[in-house]
């Protein structure tokens, strides 16, 4: 059954070792340049244009199927959908009335504290492409790229809350790293009492944790965590997740806090890219030291908060 049929049975192709070393050195060189010097950004962007048709080709059967199903759905189903959406819109508008007043108030209060950074202003909707990246990392490919003004480090939300941030930008696509990726951390704040800390991903979708909470800290199951806006990476005040479990071991100085993300990390299709508002203070001027309240113990690594 298993047979190789070629007549090419010479002992070894000439120059195998030489070519192997050559290619290996080339690959090593590429890696070093890519990692250390970041010179390859432009090349990578150009190559991503080449990859785009392949990605679209792979994703399109699935999108086509979704489109077909939608266009074949019955009138009744569409009507039911429309009624439901109208209902949702009404509720949303009702909430928005209150929200606008609150937002104005927040802006005023923030202005008093000389801290207007981090209120998101401009949005762009992107769609998750049905393309599989590495199975062991929490990343997705989105169909908006440098062409649409997306930049590395940009905050990405879904309808539930914070989804992640842009890790790499191509011309037409971008790679978004989820807040549940093991290499991701996000500065957060307990919505109930303002306790500041950092939420770190675990590599498991639907699961993040707070590793820097002391056992004495006031945090309980059910607390809502929102972005604190520190570090300048994420706009302030967007929901990140809900505390699902707090384990305090008296022998340890730090508590084990489990958080379930507010965003639908494994299901979201539409994502929102956020640009900070034009009037906001540039992120660089907002150092954690200037806004740290004296009462809260500073979380370790506060400076590298927004780093991925």
């Amino acid at each position, binding site marked *: 059954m298993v047979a190789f049929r070629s007549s090419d049975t010479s002992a070894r192709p000439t120059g195998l070792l030489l070519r*192997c070393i050559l290619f290996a050195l080339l690959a090593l060189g590429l890696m070093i340049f890519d990692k250390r010097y970041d010179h390859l950004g432009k090349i990578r962007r150009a190559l991503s244009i080449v990859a785009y048709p392949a990605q679209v080709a792979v994703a399109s059967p699935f999108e086509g199927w979704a489109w077909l199903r939608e266009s074949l759905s019955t009138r009744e189903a569409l009507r039911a959908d429309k009624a439901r959406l109208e209902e949702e819109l009404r509720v949303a508008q009702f909430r928005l009335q209150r929200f606008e007043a609150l937002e104005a108030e927040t802006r005023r209060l923030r202005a008093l504290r000389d801290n207007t950074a981090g209120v998101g202003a401009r949005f762009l909707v992107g769609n998750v492409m049905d393309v599989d990246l590495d199975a062991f990392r929490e990343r997705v490919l989105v169909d908006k790229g440098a062409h649409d003004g997306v930049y590395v480090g940009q905050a990405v939300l879904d309808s539930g809350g914070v989804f992640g941030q842009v890790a790499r930008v191509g011309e037409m696509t971008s790679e978004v790293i989820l807040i549940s990726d093991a290499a991701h951390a996000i500065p957060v704040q307990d919505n109930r009492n303002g306790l500041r800390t950092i939420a770190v991903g675990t590599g498991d979708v639907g699961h993040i944790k707070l590793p820097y909470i002391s056992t004495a800290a006031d945090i309980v199951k059910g607390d809502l965590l929102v972005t604190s806006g520190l570090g300048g990476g994420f706009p302030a005040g967007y929901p990140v997740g809900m505390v699902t479990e707090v384990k305090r071991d008296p022998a340890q100085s730090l508590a084990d806090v489990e958080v379930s993300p507010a965003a639908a990390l494994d299901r979201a299709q539409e994502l929102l890219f956020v640009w900070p508002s034009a009037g906001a203070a540039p992120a660089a001027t907002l150092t954690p030291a200037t806004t740290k309240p004296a009462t809260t113990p500073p979380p370790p690594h506060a400076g590298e908060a927004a780093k991925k």
Partner: protein
Amino acid sequence: MMRTERVRRLPMALSALVALTLAIVPLPDVIDAFRPDFLVLVVFYWSIESPRAGGLTLAFVAGIALDILKGAVLGQHALALTLMAAWATHLRLRLRVFSVLSQSLTIFALLTGYQFILFWIDGATGNPVTSFGRWLAPVIGALVWPALVGTLSRLHER
């Protein structure tokens, strides 16, 4: 000699393209970890079957394509694939006379080496993958190997 090699490049490129597509087709999360590295297997096949037709170049180009599509450090998959394809080429005369079982075991070793290089570069560049899932791929790949060789050799026989 020259002519037969020229003819062989077409099935080579085609099979590599199909394998590349299979590598990024979305699968449900449950099956995703069990996806064999089709492209790697195809590269191994061609480096054993006809190394003169450019098995190593194919390995390098396929590796770069994987790097771009998977968003890895540029050169990571290229390095791993080149080294392992060279090893496969080195072993190819022995592989031909091996039984199916020994062939699969050799492929298992090659795939493990490939995963190890990826794992090592992941660690060196500061995003280690800690899950054990990736070590499953060599086992799956070795299991798939006989079927893949059967299909590919029948295809380019015609």
